[in-house]
């Protein structure tokens, strides 16, 4: 499907069909695409002129008073400015759409049955080291994570997770590493601690984590 200004407008007004939406998103994601098709060459210059008129209106009056001799390159720059602006606007819309999702993430269910080895999982949103004899199940309804064992999680963006045993959602910050421990039968319950603060844990637990995760 050819992406044109009409389709883009529909997209931003959220009126696209699934197929159209996919086409626009493909076009947005793809770097090697044809130039955006305007309805006609006339439209293109019209849009350019409108943008330029807006620009002039916004800029201080003194500038418009000065009427320099316009060299040939002026027209080239005019087009470039308009194109840059257009791309910038499109880019910000895309950025806005891409970043508008909240901090909730898809958390994977896992089960590491090994008594010694650590499993590593990497997703778009976080990287995870799963400790020995550790499992996590996710309640499909509530999204609450039922963890048994120990994990080391490094979010790639700020995320929120809800664990069974915690009163509220846990905020995990991008670039930090957190140790999360839980045990149903054990005597410590759910513990969430920044790796930097490992030292505040009981020494016996510290040593086990250091050995397991090689941290």
């Amino acid at each position, binding site marked *: 499907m050819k992406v044109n200004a009409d389709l883009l407008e529909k997209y931003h007004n959220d009126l696209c069909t699934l197929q159209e939406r996919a086409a626009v998103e493909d076009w947005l994601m793809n770097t090697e695409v044809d130039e955006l098709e305007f309805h006609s060459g006339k439209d293109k210059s019209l849009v350019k002129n409108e943008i330029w008129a807006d620009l002039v209106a916004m800029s201080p009056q003194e500038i418009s008073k000065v009427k320099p001799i316009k060299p040939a390159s002026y027209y080239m720059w005019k087009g470039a400015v308009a194109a840059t602006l257009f791309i910038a606007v499109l880019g910000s819309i895309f950025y806005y759409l891409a970043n508008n999702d909240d901090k909730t993430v898809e958390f994977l269910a896992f089960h590491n049955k090994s008594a010694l080895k650590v499993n590593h999982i990497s997703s778009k949103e976080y990287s995870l080291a799963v400790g020995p004899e550790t499992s996590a199940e996710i309640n499909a309804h509530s999204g609450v994570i039922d963890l048994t064992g120990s994990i080391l999680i490094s979010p790639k963006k700020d995320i929120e997770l809800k664990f069974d045993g915690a009163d509220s959602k846990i905020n995990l910050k991008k670039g930090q590493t957190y140790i999360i421990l*839980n045990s149903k039968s*054990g005597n410590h319950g759910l513990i969430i601690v*920044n790796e930097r603060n490992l030292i505040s844990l009981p020494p016996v637990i510290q040593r086990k984590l250091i050995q397991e995760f090689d941290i």
Partner: protein
Amino acid sequence: MLPMPLPLISMKTNIIKCLSFFFILLFISWFFACKHTPSVDQPKKYSMHLLDMEGKEYIVTTDDLDKGLIKPENVTEALPDTISRNMIVKDGHYYSLQRKSDIFTKYTLKDNQLFAVAHLQLQDYNEENFLWVGKDTLLLSGLNNLSNTAKYYLVNTKEMKVLAKGSLDVQKPQGKFISMSIGFVQKRQDTLFVGYTVHPPIQGGNYTSSDTTYISQLTYPEMKSIGLQKDIRSTYPAGINTVQHNEFTNEQGDFYFMSCPGIAMGNRTDLPTAIFRIKANSSVTDPNYFFNLSSSVISNHAYGLWYVGGGKAIIRSERKDLYKGLSDHYSTPHFEFYLLDIINQKVIKKLDLPLDKGTRKECVLVNGDSVYIAVNSATDGNFIWKYNLKNGKLTKGLQLGGVSAFIVRLDRLLN
């Protein structure tokens, strides 16, 4: 031979050359002037180790704990990840073991930042305790990576040289016990007392300790065993003194240590937090001395024991009615400070301080008749409080503001 007179054009080029040379010189000198070479700071009397809410750490120093306000972000930068709060502070220097690399580093302060002056590569070593056995002689005691062998390094800190190293001849964990914790190392002439306990493996999230405090007597400096005492009155003797002190020697040379069976250390909550004594003329714990804090008016577990002189000590005890578990043990303000009569095994009084937070902290410092206590209160802010031992008055002193969330160390940097 004299040079020939230069033609005009060549003179012009020469002037340009000279000028550009001059400018390059100017630029270079400006560049070097900007490349600030910091000089070693004149050390201040006191050092504080701070933690912010993101787990970043800062070191700030001062000569005056009685008043003022320090915002760490205004005076220094956060410490690199390689430096942690389990430090040894003495005579203007900081000593810290990098957990991952086993590199033991000596630091000084330059422009309010830690600056490494010397390194020592240690091997398969995790630090538990330290003891100054001389002005520049430091005895480090710890465990191997499997936590089942007690090791030591004797270090000359002036030259940063290892004088001796090896294993401490103490009983290895046996039977169902697979790891150990060294609680204290104390030296008397040519004898070393090593207090420790052992642990079973953590299974299904259960961590715990043996019900016994072991005290080995070793010859010094050979580190060979000449005796072993088992005391079952409580367990986990004295904790980890690079993080928090739980032991002291008084004016008479009697050695006191506190057991730490609470959830933050040994997790044998059925046993009491209690103070033990090894008298100066004895080589075993005094059977007639057992200051049971858990059965006293405090009726809680405690971590942190500091001698303040004149037969008195301060302990930092938890409030089990205020925290939920290990998960909020460090973030909930629930710690209280009590003044104890050590000789007569009596609780003198609870100090009228706001509830403090942070599981284990080195937060009490004695200076003559003044005891400085670092308290992180959720309501009153972060302050160094001053307790006057003469008149029993408590006053608010230096405030730690800005990003400060926990004052995890309060040390004397200079005597």
